[in-house]
């Protein structure tokens, strides 16, 4: 094979690899959104007017359930073209949130989601999905979890087990920030 042919094959393979990496980067790692080249799905799908009164009602529900809501921010956002709303609880350590003060009986993340979606307020507000996001004292998001309201309620009512609930639960965990975070460092055995 001549040098020219080798070079041509090399260039073709090289560009195919670049295209493959670009496709993976766009579809899987969402790099253009990460770099701010184009807006994330949230920017478009959650661009509607927040239901501020509804958010205050859901916050009231959490307080009635005995949760310490210091550092907890609640939002109700319409999901575009879905005909339902998203309830988002941001647990912000920079604003005073502390897991040790939350006052829930069981696992705080699951209980927060269950408390948000199981009352008549959530039904009246047509909450189709709940999100819980934890931010550390530097304002960095360490983890975010979301599930459809039905699955959360079914788990709360013991219709589905923990394994099925975990399967229905989608999430993002920033492991690198988690392992170096002051709150979680005490669990690290060094």
């Amino acid at each position, binding site marked *: 094979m001549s040098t020219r042919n080798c070079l041509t094959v090399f260039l073709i393979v090289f560009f195919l690899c670049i295209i493959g990496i670009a496709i993976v980067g766009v*579809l*899987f*790692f*969402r*790099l253009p*959104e*990460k770099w701010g080249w184009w807006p*994330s*799905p*949230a*920017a*478009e799908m*959650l*661009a*509607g*007017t*927040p239901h*501020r*009164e509804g958010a205050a009602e859901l916050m009231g529900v959490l307080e009635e359930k005995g949760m310490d809501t210091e550092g907890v*921010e609640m*939002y109700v*956002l*319409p999901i575009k*073209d*879905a*005909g339902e709303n*998203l309830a*988002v609880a*941001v647990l912000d350590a920079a604003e005073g949130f502390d*897991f*040790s003060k*939350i006052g829930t009986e*069981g696992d*705080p*993340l699951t209980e927060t989601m269950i408390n948000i979606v199981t009352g008549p307020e959530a039904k009246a507000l047509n909450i189709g*999905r709940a*999100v819980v*996001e934890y*931010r550390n004292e530097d304002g960095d*998001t360490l*983890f*975010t979890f*979301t599930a459809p309201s039905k699955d959360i309620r079914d788990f709360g009512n013991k219709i589905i087990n923990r*394994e099925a609930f*975990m399967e229905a*639960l*989608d999430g*993002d*965990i*920033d*492991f*690198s920030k988690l*392992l*170096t975070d002051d*709150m*979680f460092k005490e*669990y*690290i*055995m*060094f």
Partner: protein
Amino acid sequence: MTKYKRLTLLILLPCTLILSGCLQSDKDLVIAFLLDWAKQKGILDDQGNPTPKAVGYTLAGGYISTGDPAVDAALDAGAAIDGVKKADKKLKEANDELKKDPPDVKKAAETVDNALKDRPEDWMLRNNQLVLRTELGEGNTVKDLGSSGAANNQCGGDQNCLIRLYQNRAQLVDDSIDRQNSQGVRPNCDSYNLGIQTHQQLIKLDPAQSSQYEAQMREYQSHSGRCAD
């Protein structure tokens, strides 16, 4: 921190996390939740060791698509909320301008215009822009915002959303007319007309409260000969 250092830390994760024998503290329960979820999703194996999927997670830094845009949006809701907070902060600044004596309506309107750049589809901000520009005598520049078609688009036809939209607008118009009165000037006719149109929509959408809306509408109509053109 480089990606390789993050990867090294992740590989050490199963060897470095400890859980007390009794999972009593809320932090223990949170860690247990995170581990259970990671195992269920195949990021950690049953022994808590990272799988190849964990490498992808670390390299992506939390930006992996689930394949469902609605779920991706929910997981990225924090970005939308940061936009809401930014816009709400500007709306508060605008309201602070209106509380001054005399109120700086022009500055408030400009601040709301800036807030709309962050959240152009937020009808509460649009209502504020409509009412303030009308108060400034610039109603023609924002005429489209006041149309029922625009409101329907913003609410996707949702009746409850429309009622909230028009109730918010009615309150803002009321505040605007009070503000103009408090400055010793005759409120402009466009402000009263906007109030009348808003209450006409509310009467249609919320018949249960129609007597209240009709009373307010008649109040605005009584000023039609005594307003500033």
